[in-house]
């Protein structure tokens, strides 16, 4: 591991994030990092999901629908979605002070908005649906991993949604548009662009861009990201189907209530 890191650092200093047509971690330009999804990993939450994207490790929990507090923040017509993205202090190289900072406030906001188009909020007037995402380990792409986890956790909680939301970033390194930057690529790259999408309808629900891209690169990157979202969507579905089958054999039946399929 350490040797690997050293080599990486050397390459990075020479601004060589791409070598022999491959990225430093061996991936092709349009290749996702390995993904691992576990559904229903928490007991207290109404729905939960553990999501790994390369070295990112995130966990999402959903509570609700429940009564919205404080009352004056209730919406008489539909449920209010709360979304809290939070990094554990030890999730990054230099310890992060506990509690929300400006970055996490913004990430929470755009992540919430990524779900508002799909959650059937009108089913639950005056209610709150709470989504909590904890970043346990970070290596660039935590917000996309968090959204993917939250999406599965919402389904696990039985919250009615038009469809799942899937999320990934594209970026630019060494002048090349590539999929799903890792931490080294993100630190030394030229652009990063996370998107979230309802894969079945190709509806983009989150779109941010940081850095520098030509309009042509942007268009190409967008297409690339949309394709990758479809891949992730299949993995999310598969994880939920597996959960559904095992859940039917009773492992979580004690929770009851408004679950998908229990």
């Amino acid at each position, binding site marked *: 591991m350490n040797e690997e890191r050293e080599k990486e650092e050397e390459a990075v200093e020479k601004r060589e994030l791409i070598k022999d047509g491959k990225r430093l971690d061996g991936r092709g330009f349009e290749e996702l990092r390995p993904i691992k999804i576990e559904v229903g990993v928490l007991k207290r939450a109404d729905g939960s999901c553990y999501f790994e994207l390369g070295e990112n490790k995130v966990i999402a929990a959903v509570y609700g629908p429940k009564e919205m507090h404080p009352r004056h923040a209730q919406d008489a017509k539909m449920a*209010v979605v709360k979304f809290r993205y939070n990094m554990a202090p030890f999730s990054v190289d230099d310890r992060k002070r506990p509690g929300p900072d*400006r970055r996490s406030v913004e990430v929470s906001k755009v992540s919430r908005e990524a779900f508002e188009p799909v959650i059937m909020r009108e089913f639950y007037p005056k209610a709150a649906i709470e989504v909590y995402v904890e970043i346990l380990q970070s290596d660039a792409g935590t917000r996309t991993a968090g959204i993917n986890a939250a999406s599965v956790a919402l389904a696990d909680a039985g919250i009615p949604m038009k469809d799942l939301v899937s999320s990934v970033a594209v970026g630019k390194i060494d002048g090349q548009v590539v999929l799903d930057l890792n931490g080294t690529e993100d630190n030394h790259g030229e652009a990063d662009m996370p998107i979230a999408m309802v894969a079945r309808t190709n509806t983009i629900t989150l*779109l941010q861009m940081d850095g*520098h891209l*030509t309009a042509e690169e942007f268009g190409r990157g967008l297409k690339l990201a949309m394709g990758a979202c479809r891949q992730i969507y299949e993995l999310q579905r598969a994880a939920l189907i597996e959960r559904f089958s095992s859940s039917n054999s009773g492992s979580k039946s004690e929770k009851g209530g408004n679950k998908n399929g229990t």
Partner: protein
Amino acid sequence: MGLEIMDEIKQNYVANLVASGKREDGRGFREFREISVERGVAERAEGSARVKIGDSDVLVGVKLDVGAPFPDTPNKGVIITNAELVPLASPEFESGPPREDSVQLARVVDRGIRGSEAIDLERLCIEEGEKVWIVFIDIHILDNGGNLVDAAALGAISALLNARIPFEKWGLPAPAGEGEEEEGRESSRLPIRETPVAVTTAKIEGKILVDPNVNEENAATTKLTVISNADGSLSGMQKSGSGGLKEDEVLEMVELGIEKAGEIRENFL
């Protein structure tokens, strides 16, 4: 959170207008409201600009201070962007800790300046690893008539272009290569090398329009802010609002954003 009855009526009215191809204030879908930029309005600041876009009124001040660089960029100056959505500007803004709207506003403006490398930060290094110039960009919203982001971003780059480095106040030599052109040589312009311009488009009833006013913002399901540079390249983007966008809508919004940014740059920067 629930909309008041009047807000809802206005919202429907605006949406219906847009659906029928019109806008509340008679503009075309690809037309900005009147813009004005006034530089140097706050004399205690090292640079300042007041930008009005329609009824929106934003004052941006740039202050420079000397401080330590970040450990991982020891030879670069520091940018700190902050926005205060003071309650003076809108009945919806409240006193208290900054809420997500003001955080987002500041971060999107900041992103455009960083993404375009508008400031040559290496020229703000005074002593590597020890002392650099800290550039504070403070966005003060005076009136919210909608589309604050574009006004704030235009105010920020205008104030930066207006700013002088107060090196004499700090007993420092004039920054290399910039002092010559100044008469009194008492201060020096900030090293600005790009002029990012933010343009926000909104989607209402499936239509794309630029520079939404405050009622259009309430009626819009989705907005997209596109920040672009003199060469038409992009240096920042942010979707907001609880709706979704199709790929072709995004591309239309980006194209519109780049076009309008060019016009604004030509006229005001």
